[in-house]
């Protein structure tokens, strides 16, 4: 089985995010990009399938932020090939990313495409769903487990409210991973350093995805605090009575 894993870089929230002079974008002077957490789970899911059934795992990342670090670290963890997708504007939106991934995947003919969902910057859609639409492939998103059964995959999909579904999907397919069944494996730093010395990333240059729909940001701003909180004072009993009165006033209790 050929598995492709798509890696996306998102802003690292360890440093405070700042807005640049244009007022429509993040200030990238101090900002670093980090591999989206659910993509790390998508890779773990792929490596678990490889460990169990044997598979060729190819990781792909758009060339911005610390994509190279993520690709080398994926090779060190056990991925077979790593492809850096160049030719795009820095940090494209999700629509443009989906177009770029589609083009890069054209020659790979993967049976299964795994990528994360719920990236912290997916305001214009999920790459996974958009890509499935572009490639006309079946798509299941928000999974917590993917298992191979008789030439198909069976996925556990999570729904809000604690519900889950088991869904059988024919291949090829795109799966949007929320989490792998086990935490992403640790890769020793020595192995990453060794991989950097002994392995190379494949370069896949693509035409800029200009035709892709994109959002125009008119204004970017930090959450503006509103003074709507009412602090209740007094003894616990007083406060409890006030809460009951407020709830009754709003028709929430009788």
């Amino acid at each position, binding site marked *: 089985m050929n598995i492709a894993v798509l890696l996306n870089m998102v802003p*690292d929230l*360890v*440093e*405070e995010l700042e807005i640049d002079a244009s007022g429509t974008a993040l200030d990238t002077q*101090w900002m670093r990009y*980090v591999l989206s957490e659910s993509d790390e789970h998508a890779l773990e899911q792929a490596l678990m399938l490889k460990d169990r059934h044997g598979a060729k795992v190819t990781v792909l990342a758009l060339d911005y932020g610390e994509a190279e670090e993520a690709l080398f670290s994926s090779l060190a963890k056990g991925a077979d090939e790593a492809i850096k997708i160049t030719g795009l504007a820095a940090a494209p939106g999700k629509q443009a990313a989906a177009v770029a991934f589609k083009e890069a995947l054209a020659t790979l003919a993967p049976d299964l495409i795994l990528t994360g969902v719920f990236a912290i910057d997916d305001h214009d859609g999920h790459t996974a769903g958009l890509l499935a639409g572009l490639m006309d492939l079946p798509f299941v998103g928000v999974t917590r487990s993917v298992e191979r059964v008789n030439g198909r995959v069976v996925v556990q999909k999570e729904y809000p409210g604690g519900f889950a579904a088991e869904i059988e999907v024919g291949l090829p397919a795109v799966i949007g991973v929320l989490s792998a069944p*086990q*935490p992403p*494996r*640790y890769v*020793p*730093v*020595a*192995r*990453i*350093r060794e991989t950097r010395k002994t392995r190379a990333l494949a370069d896949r240059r693509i035409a800029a995805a200009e035709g892709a729909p994109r959002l125009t940001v008119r204004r970017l701003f930090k959450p503006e605090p509103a003074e709507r909180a009412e602090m209740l004072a007094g003894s616990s009993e007083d406060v409890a009575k006030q809460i009951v009165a407020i709830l009754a006033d709003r028709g929430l209790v009788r």
Partner: protein
Amino acid sequence: MVMGEPRGAASGEGAHASLFVGTQQDWKREFNPCIQCGMCGGACPLAFAMDHTPRRAIYLAKEGLLDRVLHTNMLWLCVSCYNCTARCPTGLKITDILFPALRDAAINAGLQLPGEFKKALDNTYRYGNSLGEGPRKRTEWTKGAGVPVPVASQLRRPFDVLWLVECYPSYHPRNQGQAQAMARILRAVGVDFAILGPEEHCVGDCERLAGEKGLFESLVEYNASLLDKYEFGEIITSDPHAFNSLTRVYPALGKTYPVKHYVQFLAERLDTLKPLLTHRVEARITYHDNCCLGRMCGLYGPPRDLLRAIPGVTLVEMPFARENALCCGGGGGGMWLDTVIWQAAGERLSDRRIGHALATGAGILAVSCPFETSRFEDSLKSTGNDGKMVVRDILELLDESIRGRGGAVA
């Protein structure tokens, strides 16, 4: 050899020629002298909870049965207290070599690592500190110091003392006050110092003892090239673990620096410091010898000299003091293994140690390691002794004596 230095301590030549043992041959070479006496397990404060004692692990590994050790809890229960090393009659480096080697083997075998432990290693690789904080925030604490804290990259001139603040004093809310106190004390005694600021990365002592060989080596490379950029007389550090690696391990890798822990540095300046200690601190104080400064480096006098210099202080000793002190449980990755250790042992070592301190009747437990303040404060609460004693770093007590309680910054 300093007094109290254990036989296994690495002051001699080639002491750390092999930091990690990988092959079967390495194991035999390193541990063949083991006489299987069991002193290590007897000395270890957590051996009762280990599936194998260090003695058994050495025996199995030498016989090529490493697998039988790697899947047990024993490799995660070492907090690098150096008790086994100090007691070993053959002088084997059980803390510095056996446990890191076992953990290195587990990491390389792809075993599932304890979650907090893995996170700390990931953080250190990415951000240069185990807390996962951003480099830009490394100097946040200086804003509350009340005195200028020069950053080496902005100073653009040689300076006398490079202060390695280290990660917990830079970032941990409980420890930032200690860093601020240290800045004020250095100013007060007239030291020309600078910190590294956002460029500073962890020295890597706990990462080394955690068995992350590649991570430790990359930290050593980074730190060595960073230190090469600046011209300074000597290094001081607020962290005994950094002191441990800088004095005992970096030299074995060809990186030798003049380095002191603050207790040494300030004790050497007592003539200047003592007249500044004008406010009385009326208290019975007991001092906890941390493992790196104490058992491993034999620094028992300087912290006590500093405490005795504070007017009003009565110093009392715990029955288990100096080389017999019980570890707080935070070293060698212990800060990231509390859950695993608590599950196996039913307690944290700091819970046991706080009992020793309370038994002295002292009102203050004085410490000189950033891990210890929060660990002992937590233990006072978790053992139901909240309010019976306070935990203060020696720096905080000196600062209080200089400024008065809550006093204005000079």
